[in-house]
C-alpha cells in the first residue's frame, strides 16, 4: 500500500492518501472512525480496484481542518483530491460519513463518476428512527453500537488500547486516564478526528442531502448490514427511495461496520463496478 501527502484546497489543506491494488479506479471515503495504514478493508478492495483512499484533515496526519466548515467544503475537498491525483471517472464509494460525502459529490456532479457505492451511509435523518448520539458515547459503548460482534469491534476501535467492554472494565480504562500522557494522546487524536466529523455530523448528521439526491442519476449500490443499530435498515430504504438508480444489497450478520465484519459480502456487492 502506497502512502503519501498531497496539497489540496489551493494549499489550505494537506491530505494523506493511501493507494493500493489494481483494476478500475475507485475513490474510497472513510467513516468517522477513519482508516489506518494497511487497513484490511482497503487491502480487500484492492483485489478488484485501484483504490485511492484520502484521509480528511484531522485524520491520520492530514491537516487544515480549520478550513473545512460546511458540507460544500467537504464535497469540494473530495473533488480537489480527484483533481490533484488526476483520477478520472472513478467509482466513488463511501462508508458512513464517507458515504455522506460520496453521495453529495455524486449529486453535485453525477457524470464525474462511473458509479456510486454507499456503505451504511450517513446523511439522512428519520424522525421515527432517531439514531444514537455517537458524540456522547464513551469508547467502551461503541463496539456494541457499531458491530454485531462487539469483541471484534473492541479490537478494531481500540487501536491497541484496551477499553474494556463493560462497566467494570471501564473503571480500569478510566484508571489509565490518570496517566496524563495517555489521556493527552487519546484526547488529541479523538478531538482531531471527531472534531472534523462533527462539522457535518453534529448534532444531527443531516445537511440537506435528501433534497439533492435526485440529481445522482448514476448507477448506485447501497450496501447495508441488516443488524445496523446506529442507522437501521429504514435508512437504507430511504436512500433507495431517494436515489434514481439504486440497488440495495443487505448483508446478513453485519452491523454498521459491515466492511470489517463481512468484508467478502461487501466486496461482492460492489462487484458490478469492476
Amino acid at each position, binding site marked *: 500500500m502506497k502512502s503519501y501527502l498531497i496539497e489540496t484546497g489551493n494549499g489550505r489543506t494537506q491530505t494523506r492518501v493511501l493507494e493500493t491494488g489494481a483494476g478500475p479506479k475507485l475513490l474510497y471515503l472513510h467513516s468517522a472512525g477513519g482508516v489506518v495504514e494497511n487497513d484490511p478493508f482497503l487491502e480487500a478492495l484492492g483485489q478488484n480496484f485501484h483504490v485511492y483512499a484520502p484521509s480528511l484533515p484531522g485524520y491520520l496526519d492530514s491537516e487544515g*481542518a*480549520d478550513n473545512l*466548515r460546511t458540507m460544500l467544503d467537504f464535497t469540494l475537498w473530495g473533488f480537489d483530491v480527484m483533481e490533484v491525483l488526476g483520477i478520472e471517472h472513478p467509482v466513488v464509494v463511501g462508508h458512513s460519513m464517507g458515504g455522506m460525502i460520496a453521495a453529495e459529490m455524486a449529486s453535485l456532479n453525477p457524470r464525474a463518476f462511473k458509479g456510486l457505492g454507499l456503505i451504511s451511509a450517513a446523511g439522512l435523518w428519520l424522525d421515527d428512527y432517531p439514531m444514537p*448520539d455517537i*458524540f*456522547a*458515547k*464513551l469508547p467502551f*459503548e461503541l463496539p456494541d453500537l457499531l458491530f454485531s460482534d462487539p469483541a471484534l469491534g473492541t479490537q478494531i476501535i481500540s487501536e491497541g488500547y484496551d477499553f474494556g467492554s463493560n462497566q467494570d472494565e471501564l473503571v480500569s480504562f*478510566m484508571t489509565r*486516564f*490518570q496517566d*496524563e500522557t495517555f*489521556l*493527552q494522546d487519546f*484526547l*488529541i487524536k*479523538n*478531538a*482531531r*478526528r*471527531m*472534531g*472534523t466529523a*462533527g*462539522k457535518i455530523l*453534529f*448534532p*444531527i448528521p443531516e445537511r440537506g442531502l435528501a433534497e439533492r439526491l435526485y440529481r445522482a442519476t448514476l448507477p448506485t449500490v447501497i450496501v447495508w448490514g441488516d443488524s445496523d443499530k446506529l442507522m437501521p435498515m429504514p435508512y437504507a430504504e430511504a436512500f433507495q427511495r431517494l436515489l434514481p438508480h439504486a440497488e440495495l444489497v443487505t448483508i446478513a450478520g453485519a452491523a454498521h461496520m459491515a466492511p470489517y465484519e463481512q468484508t467478502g459480502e461487501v466486496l461482492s456487492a460492489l462487484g458490478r463496478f469492476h
Partner: protein
Amino acid sequence: MKFTFFHLMAWPHLADDFREKHHSVWVDVPNSLYDPARGHDVYHNYLDQLEYAEQCGFDGIGVNEHHSNAYGLMPSPNLMAATLTRRTSRAAIMVLGNSIALYNPAVRVAEEFAMLDVMSGGRFIGGFPVGTSMDTNYAYGTVPTETRERYAEAHELIIRAWTEREPFAFNGRYNKLRYVNIWPRPLQQPYPAIHIPGGGSVETYDFCIENTYSYSYLSYSGYLRGRDLMRGYWDQVASRAVDESPYRAGFAQVICVGETDAEAEKLYKQHIDYFYNRCLHVYPGFGEAPGYRTIKTLKRGAIPQLTPKGVKTLSQLSWKELLDQRYVICGSPETVREQCEEMIKDLRFGNLFCLMALGDMPDDKVRHSTRLFGEKVMPKLRHLWPDYADDNRFWCRPVANRRHPDQELRGVA
C-alpha cells in the same frame, strides 16, 4: 476583595436514588422530574436569597446560564438579573454570563446587557463564557469546532455594537447584519466590566489579558485543584508584562459558615452531599464534545475539568475528602476566614464568588451561613489587597443619582 454571592439555582427535589436511576443531571435529565408548581416557590426563595445577600454586605450578587440542567435552573440569567435590578440598589449585579456563541444574532446580548446596565443604574457586570460543552454543544447543538469561532465573532460584534455611535454593517461568517444599531446602549462607558469564566484554555488567558477582562475559574473542585490552572494564568500575565492586579482573577468556592465547626458540619453536610453526589452526576460522555477544546490547548496538557475520572471522583467524594481537599470550605467563621485567606493569597485573586446556596439547602440555613459570612468573615478579608484598592477596571461603576426602586416599592424613599 470583592465578594459576590453566586447562585446556581439547583433543583432541590432530586430523589435519593437519583444517581442510580438517571443517566445524567444535565443534557438528558427528563423534565418530568421538574415540578413547575414547586418551581414557583423555588425561584422566589432563590431570588430572595440573592436580595438578602445584598443586605448582608456582599459586593455583588451573581447568576449564570445553563441549559437542560437540574442543578442550574437559569436558561436565561438575564431575566433573573432584571428582577434583581428592581429589588436591590447597592450590590453589583453579575451575569456570569451569557454564552455568546449561542445567540444569533449576538447583538441580542449587547442589547440585553445594555438594558440591565441602564435599569440597574450602572451596577451591571457581564460575563462572556464560551459555555460548557453540555450547554453549548449537547443542549444547544453548536458544532463543537465552530464554538470558538462563533464566540470570537459574537464578541467582536457585541463590543462594536456597544461602542459605535452610528449604525454599521457587520459581515460575519455567522452573523450577517446590514444594520447594527442597538437601543439602548450601556450606561457604563465604554461598556461594563467583563469577566470571563475559563477552564484552562490557553486562548482564554490571552483573551482576558488583551481585553482587560477578569479571568474567573468557576469550578466546584476547590482551590487545591485550581492551583495549576490559576498559576498558568498568572504565568501568562507575567509573560505579557501587564500589571498583576489580583482583580484580574476570580475564583468560585463552595463556602458554608456555622457558629462552630461542629454546627457547620451538622447544618450543611447533607446538602453538600446532595450537591456533589446528585447535582454533579454528569454523564462523562457529555463532559466534552470532541473538537470543543482546541488542539493547541490539548497539546499544552490542560486536562479537562470534566474528564470521566474527574466526574467519577467528584460525585463519589466522602465528607472528609471534601473538606481535607478543600472542595468545600466549611466551619466556624474563624475556620472559614483562615482557609479563605490562604486560598485568596495562594491563588491570587480579588473576586471571590461564594457558592453558599447549594443543592437542596433550605432557606433558613442559606441565610444563616450568608449572614455569618457577611458579618464575621468578609470584614476580615476585605483589605487583603491594599495596593490595588483603587483598581476599578474589573468592577461596576454605578451612577450616583440612580433610582432606588427597592426602597420606593417599600415606601421608604
